[in-house]
């Protein structure tokens, strides 16, 4: 088990380096000078060079990358080795520390993704199981049609329609915007109730695609597991149907769903871009778009680092969780 975790950690570090390198190179390839952009339109070449020197973009790419890695290290060797907090550098645009930009945007995206996940599972579990129990029934056909629509509809389109109909026409929810869960800013809505109220539409929009995918997956898994020999054994023992379903079918059918959940959380971070844009949520997705438009490479890289770390950690957690719930993996 310990060897397994160590191996996973080494793998995670390698993945991390590859991802950030690619991010760096991609930015270098963009034919635009961030110094020129940061300096403004009226700058002379001398002033632009000064800004470039100040931002560090006049150094060779590998130096920039090593400096970036050095800032991320929790130890510093200048003036004797000592511990420091990891640093993502400062935004080219407004000189704010990237750590605080990411720190402000991450909770918004996390609220969206995890809240959405709860909703999509709340939809997918009962619908998937009921469809599997009555294949080709009216419920099954209706839900499969819903799945097709859910998979085909783009979240931006869904979001705009929902925002217009439910938020504007019916006025049941806010049209857009975000409310903080903990500390309401001055004269702004805040607190758990407002938070959930503002996120209701984004959650729904975000959950529909995944709910559709999961309904189909759960339905297929449950149907497959129902035909397993050990389910017949359970019935032959005299187990009632509810027990057969809970202890023998679901326990096995939902194993792959756990893995999928872990992988999809990473995918969902990417999908959040659309939902955040539509509903003007100040999350990581919206921040990425904004920073990309400003050639603000430290912020984009910072978000990349954060997202990579989050996905790696999430996958590790899922793997460990999977090993815990599936004895065949635990012991081999």
């Amino acid at each position, binding site marked *: 088990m310990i060897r397994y975790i160590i191996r996973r950690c080494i793998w995670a570090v390698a993945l991390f380096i590859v991802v950030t390198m690619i991010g760096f190179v991609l930015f270098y390839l963009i034919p635009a000078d961030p110094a020129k952009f940061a300096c403004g339109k009226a700058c002379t070449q001398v002033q632009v060079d000064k800004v470039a020197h100040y931002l560090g973009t006049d150094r060779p790419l590998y130096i920039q990358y090593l400096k970036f890695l050095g800032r991320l290290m929790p130890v510093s060797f200048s003036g004797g080795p000592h511990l420091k907090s990891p640093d993502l550098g400062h935004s080219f645009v407004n000189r704010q520390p990237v750590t605080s930009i990411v720190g402000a945007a991450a909770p918004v995206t996390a609220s969206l993704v995890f809240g959405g996940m709860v909703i999509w599972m709340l939809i997918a579990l009962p619908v998937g199981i009921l469809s599997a129990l009555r294949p080709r029934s009216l419920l099954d056909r209706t839900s499969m049609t819903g799945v097709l629509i859910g998979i085909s509809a783009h979240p931006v389109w869904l979001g705009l329609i929902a925002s217009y109909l439910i938020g504007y026409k019916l006025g049941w929810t806010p049209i857009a915007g975000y409310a903080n869960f903990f500390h309401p800013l001055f004269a702004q809505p805040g607190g758990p109730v407002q938070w959930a109220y503002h996120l209701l539409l984004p959650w729904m929009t975000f959950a529909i695609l995944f709910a559709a995918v999961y309904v189909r997956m759960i339905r297929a898994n449950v149907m497959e597991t129902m035909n397993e020999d050990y389910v017949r*054994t359970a019935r032959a023992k005299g187990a009632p149907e509810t027990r057969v379903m809970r202890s023998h079918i679901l326990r096995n059918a939902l194993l792959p769903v756990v893995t999928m959940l872990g992988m999809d959380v990473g995918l969902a971070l990417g999908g959040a871009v659309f939902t955040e844009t539509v509903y003007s949520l100040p999350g990581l997705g919206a921040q990425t778009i904004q920073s990309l438009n400003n050639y603000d490479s430290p912020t984009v890289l910072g978000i990349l680092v954060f997202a990579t770390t989050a996905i790696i950690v999430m996958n590790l957690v899922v793997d460990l969780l999977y090993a815990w719930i599936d004895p*065949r993996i635990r012991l081999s």
Partner: protein
Amino acid sequence: MPLLEVKDLKTYFATGDGVVKAVDGVSFSVEKGQTLGIVGESGSGKSVTCLTIMGLNPKQRTTSTGQALFNGEDLLKASPSRLREIRGNDIAMVFQDPMTSLNPVHTIGAQLVEAVLLHRDVSKAQARRRALELLKQVGIPRAERRLDDYPHQFSGGMRQRVMIAMALINDPDLLIADEPTTALDVTTQAQILALIEKLQSDYDSAVIMITHDLGVIAEIADDVIVMYAAEVVEKAPFDRIFKHPHHPYTWGLMGSLPRLDADLERLIQIPGQPPSLLRPPPGCRFHPRCAYVMEICRSKEPRLLPVPDEPTHLQACHLDEETKEREAARLLQTFATGAA
């Protein structure tokens, strides 16, 4: 009164292509402490017969008629909750493939305990003691330690022992074993059969042994039923079947039994395929594959009738008694010596 009496059992499955008559008018009975062997090819309806008795066929698109009287109670008319009481308690079943018949995510201890707790009002600790006792009886080494192991930590033979322990844990009156040795290697097969025989005498249970292997029947059966295409074609006490088989299909089964003591170049096989149960052939269902086919076989279905002077030996074939005795003797001689 026999322990189990099956009368004119029919099980039909409705499919997209039509009605599959998987069991078509099967009758037999099992006495307490006896072993009944059911032989036949895959798809001849042996397993479906037993699943119907247990009420384990899929509910949708299945119709079962006839009677299955267990201690006088018709299982086909019993309510689902009454069937659940009987299953695993009065009638238990061991399945063909031990590799897939145990739930991979529960320990075998948990699965055995579940079987006890479903039918007995005892504490978990008592159920666990009972589970341990059974594991020891079926010969699992170091049973105390293995109780908390998962199925994948057991070999195929050991898993089948666990399945047998699970079937016998509530001391059932009837054990249905559906090809319990098919998935196992030969030495393990012999051990499992010996185990079933021993436990049967210990518990005085009746056993229905489903198999396609006459060798297994020879080991343990008292009575034998030969099934072909959803019907019973021959039914006899064990020694009659082996010494005076009456149905050409039974002869074919015997010819395809590998033997170490005979010197056959190759096994004698029954030509052709078992018929489709959607549209079984008219007349005798075996006639397209039968070497002794006569005109009457193509149009008139033979009835299951007793052999003259042998009321316990039933067979369904149009051939006359003399031909059957002669051919059976000749073929048995052939199988034994290898002379063609």
